C-alpha cells in the first residue's frame, strides 16, 4: 500500500468517526434518511503537483452525435421582484413542481443563515433550519421532502472546525472534516472528504460518473478510474486556476464549468465559461461573455444555458450584472434585454431555472435589501 492510498484511507476513516448510521457495504441507510454513499477519498481531487496526475480526459464523439439546428432563443420577460428581505438571499434551486425555491437567507447582524423554501408566487416561506454562515448550497431531497445542508462549529484551538450534515433540523452525520456532498438523480446522497477543503462534487445524471472540482483541476471519476478535464491551459502565477462552479445539463450530455483566474491572491480577476459536450466530444470556451461570469443554470432541455455575468461595477463599487443565454451546441451567446440590474451577491447562488423551463429565478439585490426576481421564459 503506497503512502497516497494510506492517506486516503485515513481520511476515509475520519469521515466515519461519528457516523451513527447502520451501514451495509459502504452505504448507510435509514428509513427516514436518504441512502448515503461514502466515497473513498482516493477518488477525490488530487491537488496539482501532488502525486501522479490522472491523464487528460479524452472524449470520443458518439456515432449518433448530431448537431441540432440552431433555434431562436427563448424569450425572456423583464425581471420582476417578488421577494425582499433585510439579509442577503442565496438561491439554491427550484423544488420539483416548480412552485418553490430553496434558499439560504442571511440573518442580519449575525453569522447565521436560515434554510428556507419560498413560494415566489404567493410569498409563503417555510423554514427548515439554521446554520453558521457558509456558501455550501443546501439541496432538496425529493424523496424525503427535506432540505439537506451542511453546518459547522468550532472544535478547539487554531480555528479547527467540524461539519455536520443535516436533514431539516436532524443531524445525519457529524464530526466531518470539510466535507462535500451531492445528490444523484437516483436519490443517493454522496459524501466525501476532499483533500482540498472546499472542493465539491457534481454527479453526472444517469451515469456513475462523478465530477470533483474546486481549487485545482477538475477530475471526472467513474469507479476506480479518473481523468482530468483540461480547464486550465494557462495557469496563472504559480497556482492552478480554480473551478468555481460546475453544472451538468439535465440529461448529462453537457457539462458547464466556470473557471477562475484568481491571481493566486484569492481575488478573482476573470472567470470563463467552458462547455464540454461529452456526446460530441467537443470543448467550447465561451469567450464572448463578460470578463467575469458568476452563475450558470441549465434549461430543462439542456439546450440553453442561462449565464449571469458582471457587466460593470457601479460607482459605489459593487457588481452589476446582466443575463445571457448560451446555446450549448453552438456556443452562441445572446444577451437578455435590459431591465433591472441583476447579481451583485455571493457567486454561485444567484440563478436557478425551473424544471418546466418557464421561470428563471435570479438574485437582484439592492444595496440595502436581499431580493429575488423572477423572469418568465417564453417559447
Amino acid at each position, binding site marked *: 500500500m503506497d503512502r497516497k492510498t494510506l492517506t486516503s484511507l485515513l481520511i476515509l476513516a475520519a469521515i466515519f468517526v461519528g457516523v451513527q448510521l447502520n451501514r451495509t457495504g459502504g452505504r448507510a441507510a435509514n428509513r427516514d434518511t436518504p441512502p448515503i454513499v461514502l466515497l473513498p477519498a482516493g477518488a477525490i481531487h488530487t491537488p496539482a503537483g501532488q502525486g501522479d496526475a490522472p491523464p487528460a480526459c479524452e472524449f470520443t464523439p458518439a456515432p449518433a452525435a448530431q448537431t441540432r439546428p440552431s433555434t431562436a432563443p427563448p424569450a425572456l420577460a423583464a425581471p420582476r421582484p417578488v421577494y425582499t428581505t433585510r439579509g442577503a438571499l442565496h438561491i439554491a434551486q427550484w423544488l420539483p413542481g416548480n412552485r418553490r425555491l430553496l434558499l439560504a437567507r442571511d440573518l442580519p447582524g449575525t453569522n447565521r443563515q436560515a434554510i428556507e423554501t419560498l413560494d415566489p408566487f404567493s410569498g409563503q416561506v417555510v423554514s427548515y433550519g439554521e446554520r453558521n454562515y457558509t456558501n455550501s448550497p443546501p439541496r432538496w431531497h425529493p424523496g424525503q421532502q427535506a432540505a439537506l445542508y451542511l453546518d459547522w462549529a468550532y472544535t478547539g484551538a487554531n*480555528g479547527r*472546525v467540524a461539519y455536520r450534515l443535516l436533514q431539516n433540523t436532524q443531524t445525519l452525520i457529524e464530526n466531518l472534516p470539510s466535507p462535500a456532498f451531492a445528490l444523484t438523480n437516483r436519490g443517493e446522497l454522496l459524501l466525501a472528504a476532499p483533500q482540498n477543503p472546499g472542493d465539491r462534487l457534481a454527479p453526472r445524471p444517469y451515469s456513475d460518473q462523478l465530477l470533483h472540482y*474546486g481549487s485545482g483541476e477538475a477530475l471526472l471519476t467513474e469507479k476506480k478510474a479518473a481523468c482530468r478535464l483540461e480547464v486550465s491551459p494557462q495557469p496563472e502565477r*504559480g497556482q492552478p486556476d480554480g473551478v468555481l462552479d460546475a453544472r451538468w445539463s439535465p440529461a448529462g450530455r453537457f457539462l458547464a464549468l466556470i473557471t477562475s483566474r484568481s491571481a*493566486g491572491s*484569492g481575488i478573482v480577476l476573470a472567470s470563463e465559461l467552458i462547455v464540454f459536450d461529452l456526446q460530441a466530444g467537443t470543448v467550447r470556451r465561451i469567450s464572448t461573455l463578460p470578463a467575469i461570469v*458568476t452563475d450558470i443554470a441549465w434549461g430543462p432541455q439542456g439546450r440553453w444555458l442561462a449565464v449571469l455575468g458582471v457587466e460593470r461595477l457601479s460607482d459605489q*463599487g459593487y457588481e452589476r450584472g446582466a443575463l445571457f443565454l448560451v446555446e450549448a451546441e453552438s456556443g452562441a451567446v445572446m444577451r437578455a434585454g435590459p431591465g433591472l440590474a441583476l447579481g451583485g451577491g455571493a*457567486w454561485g447562488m444567484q440563478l436557478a431555472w425551473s424544471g418546466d423551463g418557464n421561470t428563471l429565478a435570479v438574485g437582484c439585490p439592492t444595496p440595502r435589501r436581499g431580493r429575488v426576481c423572477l423572469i418568465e421564459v417564453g417559447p
Partner: protein
Amino acid sequence: MIGRRVLAGAGGLLLPAVLILLWFGMARGQGVAARPEAPLPGGDPFTPPLSITVEMYRLTASGAQRLPLTMCSADDTAFGCTAFCSESGYGCPGDAIFPYPYLTGTITVGVETDYLLDVVPREMGPWYDPVALEAQAVAARSFAFYYTASPPTLLPYNNSASFQAFIPRTFERQFPENYPNDEDFQWDDPCGAQYEQLNSAQQLVCDALREFAYLSYGDQSPLRAQFSADAYGQTVDGSTAGLEAVPDPISTACDADNLGHGRGMSQEGASRWARGNECSYPGAPVVGDNPPGGAWSVAWQRDQILAHYYTGIHLRGPDGEQLTPDYRWNPLAVDWGVPGNQPPVFSYPLSIPITIWVQNTGTTTWLTGTVGMVQVWKPANPTGTLTGTFRTAITLTRWMTPGGSAQVPLTLTTGMLPAPGVYTLTIDLAVADGSGGWLLFSQAEPARPWFPLSMVVGVDAAPVRLYLPLVGHDP
C-alpha cells in the same frame, strides 16, 4: 528580444534621437550643488498618517462589495471579513476558520502594523520578485494615503477592491499559516520583535514595507497610485496626474497578458523589471501565442520601477521629504544590434553601435539640446597605465516630456581607452548646467542619487565578451 518598436509615450510619438557625437569637458569631480526642493504650493505639508479608517464589508470573489451591503460583524466568517473564511471557491482555502477580528464594521487600524500587512500580500503574491513587492508596498501605501488626505466628499474608504482589497488575517494566512490566536506571536507589530518567527512569505512582506516611502505628485500630496495585474506592451492612460500610459516592452512575451484595468503599475510587469526577465516569476507559463521569453537587457530597482509606471512623481519619506531627484531616466532596453541581442564582442580599439531605449522618468521636460547621453569608462582595477576616466557624450536633440521615451543610438568607443583591460562602463544621462558643463543625472542631486546603467566590461586586443549581468547598480 529587444524591441525596435517605437511606442507612443506621453509626449506623443517618439522619434529616434539624432546622434551628435562631441567631446566635451565634464564638470569632473567638482561636485554639484543639490537642487533645492520646490516649495509647497501652499497649505500644510502632508503628514503621513499612522492609522487609517476603513469600512469593512463582505465581498464577492472579485473583491467587490457584496449586495446587499453587509458590514462585517464581530463573529463574521464571510469572505472579505476574514481570510480564514467559511466559503469555498473564494480566496480562503484550508479547513481553519477564524472570524472577523474586530468588534465594529468601521475600524481604525495602523497603516504599517496592520493595514498594509494584509493589503500587500493580497494584492501581489509573495512569489514575485522581492523588489517588485517593495514597489507594490509603496504603491499600496500611497493609495491609502491619498484617501486619508482627500476631502470627505469622496466615498468612504472601504475594504473592497474598488480601493484596495483589505481582508483581515491575510498576513497570517500566508502559507504556512501562523494562527491568529497563537500566543507565541505579538500580532500588534509582527514585523518587529517577532520577525524571526515569521515564515518566509511573511518576512518578505515585512521586508517590502521596511524602507518607508510613498509617491507624491506635484507637492507632498500622495498619489492615487492605481495598479493592476498585467498590461501587455503598454499601460493604460489613467486620465489623472501620474497615471499616463507608458510603454512596457518587457511585457510582450512569456506570461504577459492584459489582466485588470491596466492603469499605473503593472504588478507582473514590476516583477519582470525586477528580475530582468520577460517572465514574471521562474517557471511562469507561456500565455497564448506569446514567445517563450527570456532574459531582458536591463533590470531595475524599486524606485526605477515606480518612476517608470507613475509619471512625474516623487518618492517621499516619513516627513514628506523628497527622496528622488528631478532628473531621472530609465533604460527600457539595450539593443546590441546582433542576432539574439547578445552582448557584443568587445575588442580594442573598436566602435560598437548600440541603441538604448530611454524613458524620461523624472519630473522635468528635457529641452532640445540640454540633455546628453554619456559613456564613462573606468578601469575596474586601476594599475599602471590603466587609470583615469574616459568619457564621450551625445546630445539628445529631441525634447522629451516626463513619461516619454525614445530610441537613442550610441556608439561605444573603446578606442579612447589607453589600453585593453577590465573596465566599468557606465552609461548615464547628463543635463547642461548652463555654464558649459554637464551634470550626470546620477550625481545631479548628491543627496538623491539616481541609477545609471553600469556594467563590467572586458576589453582586449583579442575579442572577449561583456561580463553579465547588465543591471543598474545602486547609485
